[in-house]
């Protein structure tokens, strides 16, 4: 069992049936995006920032139709933001003779637990 040093995901690299398992970090969750926006540690693209700004304007507009869930929260849910330096163990290409295949992205590695 190992723990990904990037996302904290826990997994077996070899499954019970003997096959290989290839972990890939998930994009940021809504909770993680919210936290990083509050901490101002997340850099959105101009298009993503506009999406949130437009949603915030509508949320503040008393004439806008009422919604159960704020438009900013809805907009955050629609974002796909990958983790910086995400790990992706999937094979990118054949390795040198006798060497394992090349991973797409090693991230910062894993810790055995």
């Amino acid at each position: 069992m190992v723990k990904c040093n990037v996302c904290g995901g826990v997994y077996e690299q070899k499954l019970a049936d003997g096959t290989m398992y290839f972990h890939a970090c998930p994009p940021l969750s809504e909770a993680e995006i919210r936290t990083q926006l509050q901490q101002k540690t997340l850099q959105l693209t101009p298009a993503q920032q506009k999406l949130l700004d437009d949603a915030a304007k509508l949320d503040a507009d008393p004439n806008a139709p009422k919604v159960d869930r704020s438009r900013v929260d809805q907009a955050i849910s629609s974002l796909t933001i990958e983790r910086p330096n995400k790990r992706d163990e999937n094979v990118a290409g054949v390795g040198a003779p006798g060497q394992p295949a090349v991973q797409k992205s090693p991230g910062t590695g894993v810790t055995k637990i």
Partner: protein
Amino acid sequence: MPDSAYDATRGRWTARGQGLLDGTETLRLTVWNGAPTLTVRLSGRVRGTDGRIVPFVETLIPTTDRVATILDRGMPEGELLGVSARVSVGTSRDGWTYATIELGTGSGGQFQAYDVLAGDCITATRRVSWPGSGLRGPLDAAGVIRSITGSTPAAGAEIAESVPTGARWELLAFGANLVTSATVANRGPAIVLDDGANVFFRGPMNVNEVASGTFLNYWSEGLLVSAGAPNNIVNGSLPANNRLGAGHRIRTVTQSIQAGDQWGTVQYLVREWVEGG
């Protein structure tokens, strides 16, 4: 005499003289394998210029990561009478290990194919052979049913599973438990399928998953989206007969997920094929 003949018993055309060798040819076995470690046996017979029939046997241990593993064998002058490949050690199933046998010249990166003699999925009992087998693509196989345990994400993070390089999946069912923290909010899980970047399917649950609960979420082909959650079991739907290519992802996206919420017990059922390069 015609240049080729149709072998009705085997259902394929055979070129006259296809097995003639001038001593410069290479016989290449290429295997794409997703099954646990196994050995592939290549065997055949050659009639030399002196008329003697000489058998040959080679073995290849393909990698288990679905990347092509290659065995090149120089051939003597004469005639290739027949060649076949099968799994000799280990277990595979139809769709998990694909092999092609080619005749060409050169080896390694310099190999130039003249002919693809045969191509098919192989197991311990099902071999690919020339003459005999036709050419069947890896996706023509029945596919292998696999139950996969996924990664358990950190608290407050989502699930993401990716289709491995060289694989094609049909996602049959996906299950995961969401243990919600005491923070009051209505969590709304959805399963999301994307191509590695762009979302092409969202399958939401129709039930709010409230604070301090353990919700057993299941998505499946043919399942109706549940209106309620008896015993905290929540059902959602997947596209029927879906196909996911290498690098595509299966993810959860949970509206109002809280930092203390925990996804876990990630288990899913797929039908898998190797794509065979």
